[in-house]
């Protein structure tokens, strides 16, 4: 029984990691109706920037907001320079551009920072807390809590502010929003900036729990996709709930389903993605969408 509890608790910890990156994916989707394949790499790169700042003597609490600001600016810059020229292009073009971006950023990180794994500090301690007989570290809890805070902030932004409304309008009804005076292009840039900032927070929280290296987010992003898809790609709440569910499911499947075993855990994420998309494409919390001729 204790083993099961521990597997679930550890799964929740993993889930927090997936949720934090999934929030960034959801933000981008809300901003432009597209998932950004480069989200994980951007988050990793921002974390390396934080690492560099800290190494040059800045305190963690100064480096963190500075990095988030830099990440925001970076996201806006990328949208202006790389995405805007292909805004109207078909989905395939955009997918390839974001994939190209992912490759570019990953290669750049490897080139600039090397492939040796680095220690990244965390404001939370590594000591653990006993939860119904299972153990969870403060760092793991920190990831979940911070994801929750970010979730609330995103929800407030999207649902309760004018800017959030403008962003969502620009994403789904471009021409109509233009007619109403919404600066569509800048809304998209804002969306990219915010997603990048959320990604930076994710990376900064996750790097201490895992290891900081250029390939940090390479497999995490797939679990994050699974989380976003499961929760409903438009819903930040879905991202967090989805993340936790994916984390627990992957752990339990790996531990208790002999067919899956310890080596096919990623396949579980794949199965979740495909299964959800076929059975209930809008996920747990999403709304159905209409495709026009």
């Amino acid at each position, binding site marked *: 029984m204790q083993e099961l509890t521990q597997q679930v608790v550890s799964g929740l910890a993993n889930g927090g990691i997936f949720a934090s990156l999934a929030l960034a994916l959801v933000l981008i989707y809300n901003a432009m109706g597209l998932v950004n394949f480069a989200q994980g790499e951007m988050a990793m790169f921002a974390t390396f920037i934080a690492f560099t700042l800290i190494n040059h003597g800045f305190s963690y609490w100064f480096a963190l907001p500075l990095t988030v600001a830099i990440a925001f600016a970076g996201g806006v810059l990328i949208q202006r320079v790389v995405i805007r020229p292909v805004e109207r292009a078909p*989905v395939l*073009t955009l*997918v390839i*551009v974001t994939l190209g971006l992912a490759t570019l950023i990953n*290669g750049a990180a490897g080139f600039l920072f090397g492939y040796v794994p680095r220690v990244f500090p965390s404001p939370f301690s590594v000591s653990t807390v006993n939860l119904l007989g299972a153990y969870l570290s403060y760092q793991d809890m920190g990831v979940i809590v911070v994801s929750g805070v970010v979730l609330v902030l995103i929800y407030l932004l999207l649902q309760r502010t004018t800017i959030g409304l403008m962003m969502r309008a620009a994403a789904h009804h471009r021409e109509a929003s233009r007619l109403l005076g919404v600066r569509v292009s800048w809304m998209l840039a804002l969306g990219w900036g915010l997603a990048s900032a959320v990604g930076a927070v994710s990376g900064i929280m996750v790097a201490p729990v895992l290891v900081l290296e250029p390939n940090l987010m390479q497999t995490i992003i797939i679990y994050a996709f699974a989380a976003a898809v499961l929760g409903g790609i438009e819903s930040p709440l879905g991202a967090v709930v989805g993340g936790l569910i994916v984390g627990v499911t992957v752990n339990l499947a790996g531990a208790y389903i002999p067919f899956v075993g310890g080596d*096919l855990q990623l396949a579980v994420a794949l199965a979740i993605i495909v299964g959800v998309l076929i059975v209930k494409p809008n996920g747990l919390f999403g709304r159905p969408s209409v495709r026009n*001729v």
Partner: protein
Amino acid sequence: MQLIQQRLRTAPPRYWLVLVVALFFVGLPTVVSSFQSSEWTQVLIFAIVIMGLNILVGYSGQISLGHGALMAVGAYTSAILIHRYHVDYLVTIPIAGLLTGLVGFLLGIPALRLSALYLALATFALAVVTPSLIKRPVELTGGVQGILIAAPDPPQFAKDAFAAITGGPAMTSDQWMYYVSLFLALLLFWFAWNIVRHRPGRAMRAIRDREVAAATFGINIAAYKTMAFGISAFYAGVAGALYGVTSGFVSPDSFPLALSFQLLVGTVIGGLASIAGPLVGGIFTFWLPIISSQFVSSQPWIPAQIASAFQKAGPAVTYGALLIVIMIFAPNGIVGLVVAGYARLQARLRGAGDRGTGQMPPDPQTV
């Protein structure tokens, strides 16, 4: 006879270009080294799979980030048949193609329910999972040990013909496999050309451009889309089998995510919805990593700083940057650029007088 002469006279210049290119490839191994022939074999193999991927992505508008996985199916089918069942390697190639085609067709069924973005996601996840999936059935695939494939000996008739033409050393296995790959590439290109020229091609393009409208026209969306998947998988399977035989070894690490990604990149950069595009794509896919890591650093006229930065940054940075630039400035790929440039040149040459006629520019998508 008269008909043939008439056809020859009215054939568009493109056809002559195709003939010249084909002859170039046929003659290539007689003038370059065996090693260089093996390099061009890899180009042809990539061109084959990209041709298939092009049918799926360019003509029917479905994204696949998982064609590396399909190549793996083809490669392992061939390897297992050769290794365990002692089937002749040439026979395994069409079997690998058909089996992979079936797998692709089956994959196409759930894919119907996925929109473009989600299909990209799902196939992306498939590509990442592929090495782990290969490792699982150890009895069948050899797991991480992989399967070794002996380099096939050229048959006597080929050796004799080659020796007669070149008068040089005996035909190597690499040169023989070059010709096998070339033959299959020409055959499969011709097959693809016929598909896109006729009804299936038109139906697929209609689906790609305006799916809902196409359905109202009575086009069987599901049939054509799954067919596109099946056909593109067939190509990937054939290419995969060749990939395995020419490498002499198949293993889980031979089919990483990077491969699937490179294939999609090659397709787009070559030029979507074109027949020549895949060849350009194959050249690009094979040569870019080599050029960025070896060529640049060995050129004395490039300053050492730039060269070493280029080399150390690796093909990843170059790929990424090139991809973005091409998608922004030349979304129809290199072939699209060439065709557009040619059309503009033609318009110039014909003179200003044509501007009033309202002539449409030649459609780059029809051959």
